């Protein structure tokens, strides 16, 4: 039976993300327990546009963490909040 990771891998590979970004995003998920990947799989399977959005979110978070940029992190969280408020409507 396919693992959650395998299913996420297939969805990401079908996406329009550039190959290097597909690999980077998949490598992020290799750090997770398979069971913990369930919400991510559900989100990606329901709407594949989330693959691109989560990838951009990941890249921004990585930039903030790698450069220790608090201001950027704050902006990311603010953007997330706006996005989630839109989903609640």
């Amino acid at each position, binding site marked *: 039976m396919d*693992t959650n990771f395998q299913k996420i891998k297939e969805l990401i590979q079908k996406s329009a993300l550039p190959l290097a970004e597909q690999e980077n995003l998949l490598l992020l998920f290799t750090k997770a327990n398979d069971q913990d990947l369930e919400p991510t799989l559900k989100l990606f399977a329901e709407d594949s546009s*989330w693959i691109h959005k989560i990838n951009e*979110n990941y*890249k921004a*978070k990585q930039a903030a963490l790698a450069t220790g940029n*608090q*201001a950027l*992190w704050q*902006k990311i969280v603010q953007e997330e909040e706006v996005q989630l408020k839109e989903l*609640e409507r």
Partner: protein
Amino acid sequence: MKSFETGPSSEQIKPEEEITPELPKEEGLEMRKAVAEQAELKPEQAIAQERSVLERFKGKAKQVAVVLLFVSALSAGPGMVGEAYAQETKPTTRTEQVQKQEKQEEKINEANLTESSKWSRGVVESARADMKKIKTAEDAEWLVRTHFNQLVSEYYMPTKGNLKEGPYGIKTRDYTEDDSKLLLRNAQEMKKVMQELNTKFGIEAFDKRIEQVDDMIKKLERQSSYSGQKQKEALERMEKLLQQR
């Protein structure tokens, strides 16, 4: 609907150097440490801050919030690259070591270099030149904050080259294969500078900084292999890794 594609302008987001202006050398290491600690983004605090904002959402928004927090936890976890990948790239045989050596010695075609990578030469050359003048731990820390931070910041939050505006106000740029090779070479050189400085003087947060440059090196190794046959090989390598799960 507002999307993740819209974000603050690049002017609103300042790189670390602009947020924590460099102090004159005379101010002393202690003062600089205090400023660095004040400005530093601590992963556990960052995630706590994000959680406090996102945990109140319900329904579909909650489903997304859970994934956003999950991505943060994975991004901030020990090592920026999955353990599996780290093991996979670890040279275990002489053949692999030779392959790695050959890759590092690959020639760079100057004609294919763009402004996306050329800036890195100046940073590393300045670091090497300044290194000869370093006499104290305070000097070493100054060099790291000046040159190392510049290399890392410019890679993750580019300001030079063929820039495109991305989400969250982050600018991205395209790299030629030779750009990636040059950046890789300079990141490896900067790592050597850091290691030498640490041996002689001791560097603040050395492990964390090495982790940052290692992450950069791993990404550039992958980027520089994405063309033609190399792309095929990289995909096969990825497939092999995935099958091991």
